[in-house]
């Protein structure tokens, strides 16, 4: 039986990330990136985020982290998704956790402190990391933290994020703990749900104010119902991902192997759909203005195109979802 009520400290963390996120990541930045090209990586901002401890949420206190659970970290990434925050956020936070698991305390400390950063490696493409940075490769066989020694930039689908093709690496850390793919999916999934939630807000706000035929377009069922479908997707994905996070956390705290594997994969599949469909519907709700580079709706479309690839292969997700274990929840 799982209690989905937020604890006081979960609520507190959620609210503090919400406040900082809105200040640090104005949507205008994503719009400017789309029009003018990406600005250089904002090192000062990265330091401020590191100073808040966001890259060491789940790392034990003895190893320099905050020592909280995966549900806390999920809430942080959900808020970061809501503001479409840029930077190698998931790779750095999970990279620090993986390094700490492997007792590579120095690497963990450098990531937590913002001295180094780690991007997620998908095939030979890495997001928001270049030569000298780290890359985190998570597969069902194992997890590896690599140093990037050679890489060339490619044109990124999302101008606010840098994508590099990696041609040379040195392996720093390798672990085979089988709960890391689930932890990755919780963080990426939470970010995707955050994207999906913001598009609901954007659509509803616009539908209340934009008028055609003398009334707000939100009074037309074609628009109203689309907004309601968007709510349903975001809401259900969020609930399932939360259940997954509670169970996946038990792999670390109670040593329950495979805990939450199905639940997290399920939540992640719903989160991918929610982000993708909602981003798409959000543009439809906005009409022509929605697909212009000056409007923020496009940020959510592009960000989804990147993040939906970060949580692992679709073939892995399908395999997990089709295995028939006992239905969860001890």
């Amino acid at each position: 039986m799982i209690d989905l009520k937020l604890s006081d400290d979960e609520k507190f963390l959620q609210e503090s990330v919400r406040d900082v996120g809105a200040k640090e990541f104005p949507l205008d930045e994503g719009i400017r990136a789309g029009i003018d090209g990406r600005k250089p990586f904002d090192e000062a901002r990265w330091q401020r985020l590191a100073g808040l401890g966001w890259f060491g949420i789940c790392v034990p206190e003895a190893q320099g982290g905050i020592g909280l659970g995966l549900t806390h970290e999920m809430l942080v990434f959900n808020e970061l998704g809501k503001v479409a925050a840029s930077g190698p956020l998931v790779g750095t936070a999970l990279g620090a956790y993986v390094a700490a698991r492997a007792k590579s305390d120095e690497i963990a400390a450098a990531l937590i402190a913002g001295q180094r950063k780690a991007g997620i490696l998908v095939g030979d493409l890495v997001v928001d990391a270049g030569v000298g940075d780290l890359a985190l490769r998570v597969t069902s066989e194992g997890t590896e933290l690599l140093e990037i020694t050679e890489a060339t930039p490619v044109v990124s689908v999302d101008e606010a994020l840098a994508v590099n093709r990696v041609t040379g690496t040195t392996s720093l850390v390798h672990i085979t703990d089988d709960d890391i793919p689930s932890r990755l999916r919780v963080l990426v999934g939470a970010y995707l749900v955050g994207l999906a939630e913001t598009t609901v807000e954007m659509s509803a706000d616009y539908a209340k104010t934009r008028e055609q035929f003398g009334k707000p377009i939100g009074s037309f069922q074609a628009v109203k119902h689309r907004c309601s479908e968007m709510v349903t997707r975001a809401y259900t994905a969020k609930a399932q991902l939360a259940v997954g996070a509670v169970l996946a956390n038990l792999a670390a705290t109670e040593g329950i192997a495979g805990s939450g594997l199905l639940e997290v994969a399920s939540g992640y599949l719903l989160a991918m759909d929610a982000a993708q469909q909602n981003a798409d519907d959000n543009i439809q709700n906005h009409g022509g203005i929605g697909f212009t580079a000056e409007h923020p709706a496009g940020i959510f479309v592009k960000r989804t195109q990147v993040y939906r690839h970060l949580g692992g292969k679709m073939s892995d997700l399908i395999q997990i979802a089709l295995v028939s274990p006992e239905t969860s929840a001890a």
Partner: protein
Amino acid sequence: MDLLTDPTITAFREEARTWLEENKPTEARPHDDQAAREFDRAWQHKQYEGGWAGVAWPEEFGGRGLAPLQQMIWYEEMVRAGAPSTGSFTVALGHAGPTIMANGTKEQQALYLDRIISGDTPWCQGFSEPGSGSDLASLRTRAVIDGDELVVNGQKIWTSYAHIADFQELLVRTDPEAPKHKGITWVVMAMDTPGLTVRPIQTIDGNAHFCECFYDDVRIPLANVVGGLNNGWRTAMSTLSFERGMGYLQSRLTIINEVDKLIEEARQRKLLENDRIAYELAHIRAQAVTVHALGYDGVAATSQPELMSSVNQIFNGELSKSLARIAIEIQGDDGLERTEWNGRYLGSFPATIAGGSKDIQKNILGERVLGLPR
């Protein structure tokens, strides 16, 4: 957010699991309606004797007086054990009972509740009319006061199990001059009252659970009015929000068993090697798993009730239909013959219509949750 490991919770689950293993019916629910009625009564009565009827019903009304959390655990164990659902007691336990608890007089509570929870009397719901579906408040079945009785004339439709129920929760118009929400009364009608004719409607799956009810000078004592004359809309809404929230949770949770059965069938037919079918089944299973999470969400009750109930109604309805559609694809040409799966498909349409159509649920989400204009 956390896993609850409180020993009292674990003990409750163990107790439920053991009782179900020892007491759940081993024979399938019969197809014949009268036999199904007796099956439902016997099963409900057995749960009552074992102390499992109405886990979350207050003790003063014969329940166990436990929290929604224990109710959810009980449902989970019912599904796990493959135990039969409430069947023809769904309205009694899910709408009529809670409505009488919330709005009834002491006499009404004493008269009806014990016979519901003990498995004696199935109920049905006389709400929809041929001209009043989504716009329920426009209902026109008329009731005129004559002495200490209401005299009812009109017609109801989509009344599930009316042909095997003992009582009906009935909405009638008692003040035709008042605005449409203000002139309605909620009243209890015994199904053997003279002037009532019940006619089952055959649906495209061959079943006949939905019925039409015709009222020809049906006389109902005024003492049967629950919640006050002309206050029926408010009385009825207290049950509908329950129906759309936790009310159907048990039957919703069973879908995971159906999905697993279909995945097994696809495996045997070597169709999991088909990428598209594997992809769709994986998504359907992910959604079936999510039904559980929505149950936990209902227990936590941190969201607005309209949000939870409408999301549940839309999500579960669409899931039921997706499952039925992929099932007929998986059985392929074998589906020329009537099978369990295409039978399920033919019976899947009420999933997004009954209890408030998905379209109405989207209006509710849009207007009451997102604040969009009407």
